[in-house]
């Protein structure tokens, strides 16, 4: 349908074509003629699951140039049949929102502002602190009974995480002897 030069002037198309009133065919712009759904241009489409609630609606994630360009319901899911609620429908914004914090921030004790911190440094600092807090809170026994645990470290969260993540959390914290491992199931 590509038209060039004067031929692309809709008035001419009105006069020569089937759309005398210039309300449809003749009024189309080049951009309109070239329009395609952006999902068509995705480099890949990945099957996913809505991250909000426990219904577990199926999602299709469209990626182009390493950016998420669309997330919508997966019609093949027998759970959701392609539908999503407002939260599920906002998933793309959850992932791509400019307000999302994507760098490490550090607040020193009694500090009044955030400071930047390298991820690697943060990991080292956290590792050091875990080891120290673990020892500080260590109990070989409690009330005369062996407990082999630390009360110095606690952890909260899990309902938004993957099973695999919860598994590593529980596994590693338990090996460290931390018991105050909790998540949303308690609230």
């Amino acid at each position, binding site marked *: 349908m590509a038209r060039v030069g004067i031929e692309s002037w809709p008035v001419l198309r009105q006069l020569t074509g089937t759309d005398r009133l210039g309300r449809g*065919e003749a009024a*189309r712009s080049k951009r309109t003629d070239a329009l395609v759904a952006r999902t068509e241009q995705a480099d890949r489409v990945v099957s996913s699951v809505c991250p909000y609630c426990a219904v577990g609606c199926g999602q299709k994630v469209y990626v182009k140039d390493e950016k998420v360009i669309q997330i919508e319901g997966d019609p093949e899911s027998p759970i959701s049949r392609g539908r999503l609620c407002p939260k599920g429908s906002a998933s793309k914004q959850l992932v791509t929102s400019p307000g999302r914090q994507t760098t490490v921030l550090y607040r020193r004790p009694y500090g009044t502002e955030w400071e930047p911190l390298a991820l690697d440094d943060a990991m080292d600092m956290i590792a050091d602190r875990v080891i120290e807090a673990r020892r500080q809170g260590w109990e070989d026994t409690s009330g005369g009974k062996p407990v082999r645990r630390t009360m110095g470290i606690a952890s909260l969260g899990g309902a938004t995480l993957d099973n695999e993540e919860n598994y590593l959390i529980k596994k590693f914290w338990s090996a460290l002897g931390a018991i105050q491992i909790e998540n949303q199931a308690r609230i």
Partner: protein
Amino acid sequence: MENSLYGPLANVAEDAGYTDPPARAGFFTDTSVCIGCKACEVACKEWNAIPDDGFALTGMSYDNTGALGASTWRHVAFIEQTAPREVGDSAGSTRWLMASDVCKHCTHAACLDVCPTGALFRTEFSTVVVQQDICNGCAYCVSACPYGVIDRREDDGRAWKCTMCYDRLGDGMEPACAKACPTDSIQYGPLDELRARAQERLGDLHREGVAEARLYGEDENDGVGGTGALFLLLDEPEAYGLPPDPVVTTRDLPAMWKWAGGAALALAGGVAASFLGRR
């Protein structure tokens, strides 16, 4: 041209110059199964990358969007109704009506007719769409729409409204809002099928005793030649903020031109008459 302005129109896309167009695409919004989740609003925004519409509580039940507009192409209305309470009647008397409104993609679309640039155009699916590369923001469409649908976004200067996801339709996908709708309150498809389905649903509801159920926009003989987006409502249209009997303004356009012609002649005649005198 008469038929192009008013009354039933067998093939809307053909009337707009398309040869052998696909079936007319439409919406049937069955508000009796709407749960007011607003997935349609959000899905529309995500797909069309529409900016937010401000963050203010309206105090109008759970509706904080208020109305359709340049940055809200689906709008869910919430209407709380309480009948006079009877003794011992606990709750049956409270109704909470929810309805997702959208551009009607009118058979005779005033917005389109008045658009001076051809930015608004009729697609091969018989829908009405703004071409954003064309619109110069004259805002004529805004005043022409009898449903108060289309509006100009002031920071951007152009007019915006539902496109019935023209880009998706072209690729054989259904509109984002219809796809998201959890309860299928929004159904998308060939308009003829939807009309039939709407009649069927209406019959079912009437048989179930929901006497107040009615269709809106399905009548080809109405003021806009029937809409491309039908609704099943549980109360009068105006309760939902819809005009009860809208008429496309261009129905009267021939008459208007006649009157204007007359006035022009009068003006010319008046001037001429004024030159008839001595001085």
